[in-house]
């Protein structure tokens, strides 16, 4: 896989005329309808909308976890439609970090093992040291050998963030990162996310239904019924 460099800072993420239709027993369901948006490199963008508006689906298209029914997704000049599943996996491994609402840590691995995973996949011999450093950054060095079940929700999400950024990806995707957390814990998580964004100049695409959280981003894009409500 080659990553093209002929993109402009203005259209680091380019979603062009994307539709996503899923089949169901009741017939086809249109999840996304003709969505077009661009995001600048280093920008922080919030996708805001009620449940079922299609914001998480749009995020999964940007992550390459789902393929659009129509339209194209291009990130950093790489058209996802041209890549195989494995090439998409390699792209994510090298250039993307994802934070899930439900954390999705591997329960049978300790915190440090979870964080080291992307580096180990890339064959980084210093995976464990780097993972420990990242855990230190999110304030969980002391809990490195704990299993997810032994951590609180907030701690689990901080481990998930450490895992998402340990390989220094240029793009960080976060799907309702505070959705399963209480207010205070959620604020702490958001602070961590935004400080990482600021320090590492990552592009941040954040899905949320929390207006206050969305407003901390440089740009807010509203969604409803699978469409963008505002010009992106």
């Amino acid at each position, binding site marked *: 896989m080659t990553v093209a460099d002929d993109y402009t800072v203005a259209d680091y993420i380019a979603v062009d005329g994307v539709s996503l239709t899923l089949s169901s027993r009741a017939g086809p369901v249109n999840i996304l309808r003709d969505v077009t948006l661009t995001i600048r490199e280093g920008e922080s963008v919030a996708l805001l909308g009620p*449940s079922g508006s299609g914001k998480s689906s749009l*995020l999964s298209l940007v992550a390459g*976890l789902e393929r659009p029914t129509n339209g194209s997704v291009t990130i950093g000049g790489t058209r996802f439609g041209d890549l195989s599943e494995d090439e998409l996996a*390699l*792209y994510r491994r090298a250039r993307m970090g994802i934070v899930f609402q439900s954390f*999705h*840590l591997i*329960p049978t691995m300790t915190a440090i093992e979870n964080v080291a995973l992307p580096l*180990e996949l890339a064959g980084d011999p210093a995976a464990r040291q780097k993972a420990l450093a990242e855990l230190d950054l999110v304030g969980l060095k002391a809990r490195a050998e704990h299993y997810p079940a032994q951590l609180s929700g907030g701690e689990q999400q901080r481990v998930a963030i450490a*895992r998402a950024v340990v390989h220094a990806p240029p793009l960080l995707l976060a799907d309702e990162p505070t959705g399963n957390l209480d207010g205070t814990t959620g604020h702490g998580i958001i602070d961590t996310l935004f400080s990482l964004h600021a320090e590492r100049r990552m592009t941040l695409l954040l899905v949320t239904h929390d207006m206050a959280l969305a407003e901390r981003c440089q740009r807010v894009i509203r969604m409803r019924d699978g469409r963008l409500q505002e010009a992106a």
Partner: protein
Amino acid sequence: MTAGAGAMSLATTARWALREAKGGLRHFRIFIVCLAIGVGVIAAVLTLNHSLTRSLEEEGQVILGGDIAVEMRHVALGPSDVSALEGVGQVSAIVQMRAMARVPDKEPALAEVKAVDDAYPLYGRLAITPDQPLEDALAAQGDAWGGLADPTLLARLGIGVGDRLTLGSIQVLITGTIETEPDLASDGFLLGPRLLISRAALTASGLAIPGSLMENQYRIKLPPGADLVSAVDKVSAVFGDKGVEISDRRQGAPGIERFLDRTTFFLTLGGLISLIVGGVGIATATYFYLESRTETIATLKSLGARQGDIARLYLLVLLVMGTLGILVGLAVGLAGAYAGFSMLGGELPFRARFLLGWTPLLYAVLVGYLVVLGLGILPVGRAARISPAALFRQVGLSARGRVQSGIGVVAGLSGLALLCLVMLIAPRPVFALYFLAGTAAVGALLWGIGTLMAGTFRRLPRPHAPRLALALGNLARPGHTIQIIMVSLGLGMSLLVAMAHLRASLGDELQGAVPENAPSFFLTDIRREDMPRLEALLDEAHVEDFNSMPMIRGRVTHLNGVEPEIDELDPDGRWIMRGDRGFTFAAEPPRDTHIVEGEWWPADYDGPPLVSIEAEAGYALGLKPGDKITINVLGRPIEVTVANFRKVDWSTMAINFALVFSPNTLAGAPYQYLATVRVPPAAEPALATKMGGAFPNITIIRVSAVLAEVSALLGKVMSVISAAAGVTILCGLLVVAGATAAGFRQRLKETAILRAIGATSRDIQWAFLAEFLALGAVVAVLALAAGTLGAWFIVTFWLEGTWSVGWHLAGWVLVGVIATAIAFAMVSYRHAMRQPVTAVLRIP
């Protein structure tokens, strides 16, 4: 249900249980299959045994050839004895012996000759082709006597119906072939195919002379309504201690009964191993099912259900599923029994019927329920203790931990009852107990090694290679089922490896490991007057070795003047006392004699009769040099003093006798010679033809042919045991599949997470392969070790044979394990990759 009120009513519990069972059916697939296999094997084996045993009982008269049979080995009964028998019922007299059937320019063939009178058969029907009256088929025709032959004999001699063969000094015209012989089952192991002639023909052949190895049998058909027991008593009274063997229709074929007993025994053991391995599957499936109900149980308890309510509810679910498994097992078992019967039916030497019995089915059902209770109730007890707090945090079902005392008692009683039931079912309870204990010990060892491995995997440093790191991560996971895989696959594989080694060892014992100087032929019925000519012929043929000893038939009747109860004697010596034996006499110690106690007599000894006894048997009979034994030779009792004990190595296959007398003991008794001859294998056919032509009365037994027969029989036995091992492995594979599937939801999620953070399909594929191959390799190594050790133990200490290693077959077992591991890895991988990441991670 109301919190604080009494226990849930049975009706409510039953209703809930049915609802739970219906919803949880998919969790119970392996449970049902494992239980069905275990119950099915037990039901099949017991039903088959029931059918054959009952058929044997029903066919007792036909198999024995009469209601009562009287047998004398060496001589025929006198007219007064025969007329005494005729006072009891209709009598049919038969003589059986081995002899050589010859045709010109062909190698003679050993035939089991049966000479019958006009009354034969008293029961059943002799089926012959072409159909004709037996009297006509055996009648003299010109210069030849009529005869019926087993088609195998004709094939060996290259002749057909209408051709002639020579038997002793007569010509036998083959008038037809024998299709079924009603009393074949009572004749035991036959060395050659049957040749049926008339008694008059046998007399004319000159083969049946005093000293010949033959059996004189008299079958009696009682008049309708006659009492069997009093008739047997009457016959016994006629003969006293004349050395006859009397049997009746209740034990028509002790040999077949022993065969059935052993076959049932081995198959029952196979069934028990399947049940043990299946038991692992049943326990695993129960555990995983109850774990999946954690949230439901916690919710029920938060609503007021008590431990007892939960225990009863899920026990009922288990019993519903158990009933389903048992019903499937019974159906499969009956089908299996019928299939087995259909395959065996044609091979059996008696007419058997397929009979259903309630007792075998009841045993199978009881085994099934006791297994379900014994294995299921502890997890149910633990599930009942799940805290409602499980709703708030990740608390699963504990695989250990205390249970209510009532639950513990039921589990213990079920186990004990199961053990008692197995003792009741198994033909040899003590051996079955040892076997079960041994299997359980191997199972526990495999489980322990699995636990050790899981701990080791957890402590190993994570490798830098990402795929290996993933594989190790999977192996080290707390919920991994390493122990289950070790036991469920390890047991079956160990059994298969043991079979491979046993097959090699016993095969070598029979063929390769036959002593270097083993004879090529055993010659029996050599008349004294023929001996010089035979020696000259063998000398001319430049045989490598020739050894002969005189032989007289007789039996031991008393030990130190007392007639012992044979069944109460030590088995190592009992055989000496049972029926007729071959005796010999010698002035000099026979070849390779090793005296362990006492002295050999002088060459010119002429004192009171002396005997040298094989040491092991002598000691087992409680004898010592100086003691007296009484023998009966041709009706004459002789008291003999024990002069010495000899050590005899029977495995050399040289001629040897348990009892060797001083020459004067048997002076005047008619005897013939027994001899062994050794020639290079290539020279065997020519020498057999030459001896057969020159000495029509000598019976020539080719050692290699007998070994081939025994080897074929051994092969069949091994195949049956290997089939049992196959069922065990099938059970093991199902258990592994079940355990893998049960933990698959978690694995699926982990795979999706890995894919989301950048693992390629190849990373995941290699991780799966590395994980399963590592497990497969450990199972293979353990199975090789356990199977080899077990087989070595059996061969060395139990069979006291020569240990040979069957690496070839064991190697295939290894290949099988690796192939299975790869198959499991690939199926798991494909299944995991088929699921979209977004669906597994529930990204809307």
